[in-house]
């Protein structure tokens, strides 16, 4: 196993702090892209897609850490994340449908009742 760790371009990934940093960066970048999407897009569905994207990013980080520490906690957690994401997707989509019927639009800006 030590050999594996020393080999470049290894499969599965031979984790070092630097490799972890690569994965974490990808995770953070994906999260940020999701964030930007959530903040800029006005289509409710796309906004929900962006939240899924952020879940995704979190998943990458979790699995990378799981690999780094060579245990299964991270992966277990990703399962739960997936569960929640699925629940969220179901509810969110139901909501989207519901809202769409009300306003005939998917725009999040159509809903501004909380305006002060």
């Amino acid at each position, binding site marked *: 196993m030590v050999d594996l760790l020393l080999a470049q371009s290894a499969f599965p990934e031979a984790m070092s702090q630097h490799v972890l940093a690569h994965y974490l960066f990808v995770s953070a970048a994906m999260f940020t892209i999701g964030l930007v999407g959530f*903040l800029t897009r*006005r289509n409710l569905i796309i*906004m929900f897609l962006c939240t899924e994207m952020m879940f995704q990013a979190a998943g990458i980080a979790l699995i990378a850490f799981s690999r780094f520490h060579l245990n299964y906690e991270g992966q277990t957690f990703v399962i739960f994340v997936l569960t929640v994401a699925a629940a969220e997707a179901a509810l969110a989509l139901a909501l989207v449908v519901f809202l769409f019927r009300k306003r005939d639009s998917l725009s999040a800006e159509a809903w501004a009742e*909380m*305006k*002060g």
Partner: protein
Amino acid sequence: MTMLSMPLGALSNLVAAADGPYIATGEAPQWVALIPALPLLGAVLCLICACLNVKNKAPGYLTVGLLAGSFVTTLVAFLGGTDNYGVATIFRWIHASIGADSGTSLVSNFAFYFDGLSMLWMLFVTGLATVIGLYSSEYMSGDKGLGYCRFFFAFNVFVFSMSCLVMADNLLLLFLGWEGVGLCSYLLIGYYYKKPEAVAAAKKAFIINRIGDLGLLMAIGATFVVFGTVELRPLFEMIAAGIDANGEAIGGTWAVVVIPLLLTAGAFGKSAQLFFYVWLPDAMEGPTPVSALIHAATMVTAGVYLIARMFPLYAADDAMIALTVVAWAGAITAFWAATIEFAQYDIKRIMGYSTISQLGFMFAGLGLLGTTGAVFHVFTHAFFKATLFLCCGAVMHGFGGQLSLRRLSGVMWMKGFGITAVCMLIGCLSLSGVPFTAGYFSKDMILAQAFATPGDMIGGAYFIGLLLLLTAAMTAYYTFRVFFRVFVGPKYFEPGDDDHGDDHGDDHGDDHSHAHDAAKEEPGDALHTGFHPHAPGWAMNTAMVLLAVGTIVIASLYFVNKKEDHGWAGTMVKYSSAAYASPGLGHKGDGEKKDEAVGLLPADAEAGAVMPVSLVAEGVVADEDATAKASGTLFGYDPFKIMYYVSAVLGLIGIIAAAWFHGPKGLAGLGIGNRVEPAKVRMDAVAARFGPIPRWAENKWYVDELYHIVFVKVLLVSSHIYHAIDKLVIDGIVDLLGSLPRWLGSLLRPSQSGVLHSYATGMVAGSAVLVALIVLVALL
């Protein structure tokens, strides 16, 4: 006469030698409480009548009966002589202690203090109230029903309050009466509440009185501070001894100057003197019996009463500052009111101004140290002025509320007005000071006092005298102006519009329906063929006759106890707090020697210092008293002797002037020339010569307008300003403070756009900042 003189004879035997204020030390019988209690009962009965919706004259007759009872009680008390003088405590009213251990307390009982002064006042108050009540029972018959009850309710409450005022054992109860009469005055002036003028007049009377009352209230406070009591008897005892509650001498302290001045302010308000007179003429908006009783005979003399009552305090001041003020104010008011009267045409108003003027005489009399004259004048004035008012009322009643002397003439010759005219004549004679009338004697005492009182006691007493003499002549003139214009001359009238309210007129229709039916024209009544003047009925006639007779009879009181006390009034005054050794007069119970010494005093006699009453009372200087009592003279003679002639002459001059200008035949009537023109034409010609002055006088020298601008307007404007300040500034600041959170909120409000994105952006920014903080903390 015998009835009156008998107890007085007994009285004079008991006279103490001292001239100091008499202090009634005895116990008055408890039944004197009946005097105020009966009118109070009357008030309650009137109230019940109102509740039962009584529509007949029952309230009037009830009132007359109860007032008569009150009068009889007063008479019985009076006949009891000095035995009845003293204090009768009915119940405890206000007792409050000052501080836990000072031991002083504010004691003010519902108690009555009886001495000569209150007795004299109560006699004419209850007596006149009875007679005028009788008169009113007919006069007000037009308002039978609620209005009638209301009238007699207030009438009764008035008599009750006046009794409390006059018989009060303490200043607080006096104040109760003082305000009570003010209330009744308010209610009665505003009796015809549908007339805005009446309502305004009522309000004006009450408010102006209140200004004076503040002075009285302050005086009560000061009295309490200085003397530790507001009860009259201990007060008089202290003043007589010349000490305050701490036993320190009061002579020369502020107390004897300030308290009298404050009292004077109160008296001026009630008696319509100096700056306060403006309410009284307006008060004539009330029903005439009210004017007669309240605004001529009784209530307005409360000021005189107050000063007379507190006279020891006034006299305790060696410099006599307050009294000088009183004297001058009285004289000026008397003269001032007389000038206005010259140009007035409303006969009731003329009588109103005349009242002010006569009250001025009374104040001058008091200020000039002549309490006897002043009090006597109050007494006589009550009778003859009431007579005059009642006669005016009869005319007004008969001619549908007509009061202008330009629209009435020859009333004497009209059917049924004979008694009215005769009574009027008697009243006019008395007011003018024609010899041997009541007014003649009483006014003379005041006039003479003005010359008898040395100028170093009351500054400018001589000039006051001259002013008063002039006023006396003017009085005669304007009095007879009314008489000549209204009662003699060709028969002519224009009925008034009877602005006493509709129901008044309706009633006339019921009582005198024949007058309307009859198409017969009265002579001189060219304009209103349907109007028939209706003469006063039995009740009004009886009342007028009673008062006229009273006016004649009371003249004789001047001769009762003449030697000892300068008349009956003098006797009464002697047994009261107003007792004072007036310069040139004094109370001559000491004997003939003093009388002569004073009577024939030469003109250049040294005006020695007059001892303050307190010292006199102690009897220390009793012997020197006779000689030291220096007094002024008039034309080198004792003013009290010569005044008989001077004033008679002046009075006659005034009457002749009136006859000249206003008599039916003018000068021709006096046997000079034979040109006869209507009085109005003649007068207009005379008035034209004075340019705008008559117009100014007719408009009362624009004093009301001046007051309106200086006081009312200024106050009103400032009130509006205050209101604006209250609303904008004070409440504005509060609202501003209140709106601060709202304002802050509105600043933050745009951040709550309601759009999901902006909240999310905010959240992200917040987390960024949080993470940055964590990183920074880790870095540092």
